[in-house]
């Protein structure tokens, strides 16, 4: 554990999160491992319902309980067990050590408070500083994200979507967190504004050396900002590796399907190869490999045996039976198409 202190900002082991609902137990996260080295950015990629946001909320211990419950695993933040903290201690960690940027800038700001006051509130919660000093600091932070300081007395509705997201970024970074969780931070924004915001986040991160967990479904954004990538499907990590591992030697059929679903901007003649079927119902996950009903290489064994994690290289991990010995599953070609 000692070496983790230095190396990893975040280390998640075997995390499991479940939600008890009237329709049954939703198994949102099913034993995932994630780690982020200091100053690095990890991309967590997956579609709606993969469990990405639940994972993020677990790190802040904000999974709504009930109905949600973290049923297993550990989360280590800078060498300390996150589940050992009291609720009071968690409050000081949120915002100062770990902060989060949410997807929708329209709903994550308080509409009846000026943006300056909202940022100052965060500062005052974590630092011993008077109102006036906090407001000054808030103004400086707004300037840093490219908003004129004199607009700190305005309300969220007076800002555009891109500006609101900048306010949220300012708020998230004002206490110099060690880990920034960004949950689809640019999904609600137009492309030119998205480019501005990504550029800004990148610059600020370099300046402060913040580690980041970037949750997204956009592989284009991943290619641009991340160092490592984890691909998540139905509450499990199906493939993990460096950018090169994932983009150059794509190994899991689901990852392959994700790439096949994206129109190729350089070759418009190329046909899209979508993944057939739908995300599985999380209250009734398929047996064996959870991806098997949609996998074109699926063999009988995939229906019953849960794939273990196979190490393809020091950095590249994959959970697919095709990479385990003696399973008889092979990839490549067009399967049964």
């Amino acid at each position, binding site marked *: 554990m000692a070496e983790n202190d230095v190396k990893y900002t975040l280390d998640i082991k075997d995390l499991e999160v479940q939600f008890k609902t009237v329709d049954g137990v939703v198994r949102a996260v099913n034993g995932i491992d994630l780690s982020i080295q200091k100053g690095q950015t990890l991309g967590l990629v997956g*579609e*709606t319902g993969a469990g990405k946001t639940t994972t993020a909320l677990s790190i802040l211990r904000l999974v709504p309980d009930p109905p949600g419950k973290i049923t297993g695993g550990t989360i280590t933040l800078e060498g300390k067990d996150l589940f050992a903290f009291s609720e009071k201690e968690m409050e000081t960690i949120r915002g100062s050590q770990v902060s989060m940027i949410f997807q929708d800038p329209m709903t994550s700001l308080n509409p009846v408070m000026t943006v300056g006051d909202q940022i100052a509130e965060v500062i005052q919660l974590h630092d011993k500083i008077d109102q006036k000093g906090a407001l000054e600091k808030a103004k400086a932070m707004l300037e840093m994200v490219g908003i004129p300081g004199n607009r700190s007395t305005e309300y969220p509705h007076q800002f*555009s*979507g*891109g*500006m609101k997201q900048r306010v949220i970024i300012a708020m998230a970074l004002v206490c110099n967190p060690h880990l920034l969780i960004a949950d689809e931070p640019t999904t609600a924004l*137009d*492309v*030119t*504004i*998205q*480019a*501005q915001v*990504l*550029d800004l986040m990148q610059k600020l991160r370099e300046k402060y050396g913040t580690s980041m967990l970037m949750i997204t*479904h*956009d*592989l*284009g*954004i*991943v*290619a*641009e900002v991340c160092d490592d990538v984890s691909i998540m499907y139905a509450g499990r990590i199906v493939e993990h590796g460096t*950018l*090169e591992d994932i*983009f*150059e030697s794509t190994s899991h059929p689901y990852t392959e*399907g*994700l*790439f*096949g*679903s*994206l*129109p*190729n*901007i350089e070759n*418009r003649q190329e*046909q*899209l*190869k*979508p*993944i*057939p079927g*739908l*995300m599985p119902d999380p209250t009734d996950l398929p047996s064996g490999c959870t991806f098997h009903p949609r996998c074109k290489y699926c063999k009988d064994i995939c229906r019953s045996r849960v794939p273990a994690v196979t190490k393809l290289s020091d950095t590249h991990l994959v959970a697919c039976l095709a990479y385990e010995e003696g399973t008889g599953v092979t990839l490549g070609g067009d399967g049964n198409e």
Partner: protein
Amino acid sequence: MSDVLLDVRNLKKYFNTPNGVLHAVDDVTFTLERGKTLGVVGESGCGKSTTGRAILRLHEPTSGEVFFEGKDVTKVSNQEMRHLRSQMQIIFQDPFASLNPRKTVSEIIGEPLRLYKVHKNKKEQQDHVLELMELVGLSERLVNTYPHELDGGRRQRIGIARALAMRPKFIVCDEPVSALDVSIQAQILNLLKQLQHDLGLTYIFITHDLSVVNYFSDEIMVMYLGKVVEHASSEKLFEHPTHPYTKALLSAIPVPKLGEKKKRILLKGEITSPIDPKPGCRFAPRCEYARPECFERTPELKENEPGHFVACHFSGEF
């Protein structure tokens, strides 16, 4: 000219707001050939959806002409419009909001058939609904389910089946895949392409996603604040973007490939207000090449080379 299905001339749609007149669509002109797809791209508030709706008269145009198979849609009587609507359909962006939650799948898809009294009896209509469901890849067992029981992809398929019910010639697809996950998005895009091929449909495809529009369209029209800034074939637009806005827009797309750290043109500021716009190029306040003239004179949409239209005073110079 070849077989022109849709001919839009000087289409304008203004909205009166408490703060002044909002120029949502300002002088849009284009033609669209039968069986082709025109992609309309631009950012929020550029007027792309309003253009689509004004063509179908879901928004009554302020002025301008829309010729559909030679007939001016803006001038026809309500009776005739009713008939024309069966030929011109729309697929909406949000499959969660565009379906009546109190109707079953078969009622939703059968609604246009019922309204136009296409079939003599319920049995015939039901058979037609099942046929349509098969066409869009919806399994028959879903016929009596309600929209809330279905996921986004299936809901969008219902919207497509409903649009196809009257065998239209022309469909406005208003961000049909924006609300869907990538793997589902690809399924729907392939379905729309297949249908176009099989039924000879003509599409206007409205989207903010440039890689999707490139994949899907024959021609692309880029809009900015109610104006068309560039219009060309997809190949041309992506290979030789001419308008500074198009260039910035294309450079802003995050490409899912490594080692392509391309030079990104970061635009200054944000889209300005479309309310009572001043004369001059509407993109000028954000344009890195803007000169005094750009703030004084509105650039016309000119045909720079055959089939490539650009609205910029200095388009040849950079």
